[in-house]
């Protein structure tokens, strides 16, 4: 996995790159938007971490030009600005996620993992989350290498949670994703599917958290 960091502050760039290297990624650092565009043209990256507040060509402009070249590499925006508009603008321009400075390294690392996982899921049929593996084309699930039996609705719920692992997903969003057209699915039904999924996944250390009054979250998987 190769990550490009575009950050003009050398201290921050060095810190982030060391942490990501520690997580097992190959990391390149550039200081400006122009250099970032050159780098992306020459090499294939799995993720770009882009600071919005770059000198010269700012992050938004770099992102716009990057997307104009039909580059689909996922982009995680770093910003020190706090206007809601910036966040909306960044995502509108084709950014995939957004982290506000300053941030905890664990948060950044989790976002990086989630983005890479998501782009892999879009690129290929397999989604991997720790010992859990979903083959979205064959619709087969494996847990610690062994086939995992899932009912259709359980599969649907797990797929939604997995594509948004480490993020909270509202019950409404789950219902929308798994309910067929014209079918009413109650929040209680979702609870039933989640509790069945928990029974199957928890022995392998995969946790689904309940967020009271909101929904669920598939917890980021860390090796025990």
């Amino acid at each position, binding site marked *: 996995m190769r990550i490009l960091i575009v950050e003009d502050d050398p201290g921050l760039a060095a*810190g982030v790159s060391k*942490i990501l290297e520690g997580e097992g990624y190959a990391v390149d650092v550039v200081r400006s938007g122009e250099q970032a565009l050159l780098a992306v043209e020459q090499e294939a990256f799995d993720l770009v971490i882009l600071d919005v507040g770059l000198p010269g060509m700012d992050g938004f402009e770099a992102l716009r030009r990057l997307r104009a070249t039909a580059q689909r590499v996922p982009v995680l925006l770093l910003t020190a*600005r706090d206007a809601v508009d910036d966040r909306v603008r960044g995502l509108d321009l084709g950014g995939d996620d957004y982290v506000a*400075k300053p*941030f905890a390294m664990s948060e950044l690392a989790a976002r990086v993992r989630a983005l890479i996982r998501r782009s892999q899921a879009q690129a290929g049929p397999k989604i991997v989350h720790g010992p859990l593996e979903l083959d979205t084309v064959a619709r087969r699930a494996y847990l610690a290498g062994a086939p995992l039996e899932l009912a259709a609705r359980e599969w649907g719920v797990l797929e939604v949670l997995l594509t948004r692992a480490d*993020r909270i997903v509202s019950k409404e969003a789950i219902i929308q994703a798994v309910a067929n057209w014209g079918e009413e699915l109650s929040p209680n039904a979702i609870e039933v599917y989640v509790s069945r999924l928990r029974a199957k996944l928890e022995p392998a250390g995969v946790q689904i958290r309940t967020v009271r009054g909101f929904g669920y979250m598939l917890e980021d998987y860390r090796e025990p």
Partner: protein
Amino acid sequence: MANGRSVRVQLLRRLLPPITALLAIGAVIAYYPSIGPAESAYDQALIDVGLALGERIRYAEGRYSVDLPSAAERILRTDRYDQIYFRVRAPDGTSLAGDSDLPAPPPDDTPNDGVIAYNDVYGERDVRAVAVLVPCAGKVCTVQVAETTVKRKRLVRDIVLSSLVPTLLIAIATLVIVWFGVKRGLAPLARLSEQIKERSPRDLRPIEIGPVPEEAKPMVGALNDLLGQVEEANSNQQRFLANAAHQLRTPLAGLQAHTELALGQAVPDACRIELEQVHLATVRTARLANQLLALARAESAGDREAALEPLDMRRVVEGVADEWVHRGLARDIDLGFDLAEARVRGNEFLLREALANLVHNALEYTPAGGHVTVRTATRRAGDGARAVLEVEDDGPGIPPEQRAQVVQRFYRAPGTAGTGSGLGLAIVSEIAGLHGASVEIGEATAGGHGCRVSLIFPAAPA
């Protein structure tokens, strides 16, 4: 108006003396040309009486007499208004008929066409008199006729009145027109001040010059220039804040990254404790920087009322819930939600900032294993609906006597644990104020446990 500085009062004060003077002059000017002919007409009537009496003088045997029947004398003396007196005198001055004590005309008056007209006093009354010289037996007899001045005074009064009344009416009309005309002319100014009064102090848009009178335009222009300068200063401050935010946060992010990196390595225990202190201080500094920037932003006009837009706080909470769940998990606190529609006119950025501070406080002061709930709701109040954003926890709570103080800047309750700066609730209160919302601090449960902070907004229509 009452202090006499009113334009109307000043104008009237200045107008009143010249108008009074004009009235007086007008009366005098009207009086003299009309009194002369009228007086001479009355005098002529007296002269006619004198001539008629002169006809009645007889001369026989060296004696003069007047042949005046008493009926004729009654007719002669009859007048609707005045008392008539007469005296007929022989050439030697002896009275022949009439009022023998009527005084003689002043000796120095020379007769004009055989008549002397003069003013006199008779029987303690003002009289107008004529002395007509009539020929009698080759000599000159004198007939004096006098009358009191009642009808002459009436005439003067009538003349003065008839000339005064129209001018008086014109004067009154002038004063009335000035009084209401000034009020009417100044009405655009009154509207202008209403317009300025009704403005929010954060509304820095220029005042429309439209209906303002020409004379007030420089004032409005100056006011608009001032508003423009304030606006300019505000947007400069906004730019400064955006830059400051960036310049502060980037190195702090770097510092945080490196301390976390260092902590991830094998370091001696003594060193680890120091590093953890540095890390903690970094996180606190970052948070403090964020809060100060948020406070400055909430205060500056960049987020003025015009920037409020209709939104549902439920969606605002849903949009940021993710950020807080992780922190709750890390502290082993059950962060839950109770979300229903809550429509307000608000600024999303500031509302998120207020929410972040409330949730941060709740997570900070609630012990592990506790519960924190974020709630949005629309509640019926006496005179309409209220949108509510509240955060409650089952932590130690805030004692009633400290609740007024906790919203003050940098106030930290005595003996509190945690790493707060004392700015959180001050920011919440500032942001609530901007939205016309009130902040209520209470207990989460009836038993007096826990803390509940509610922001109560005037509900916006859906």
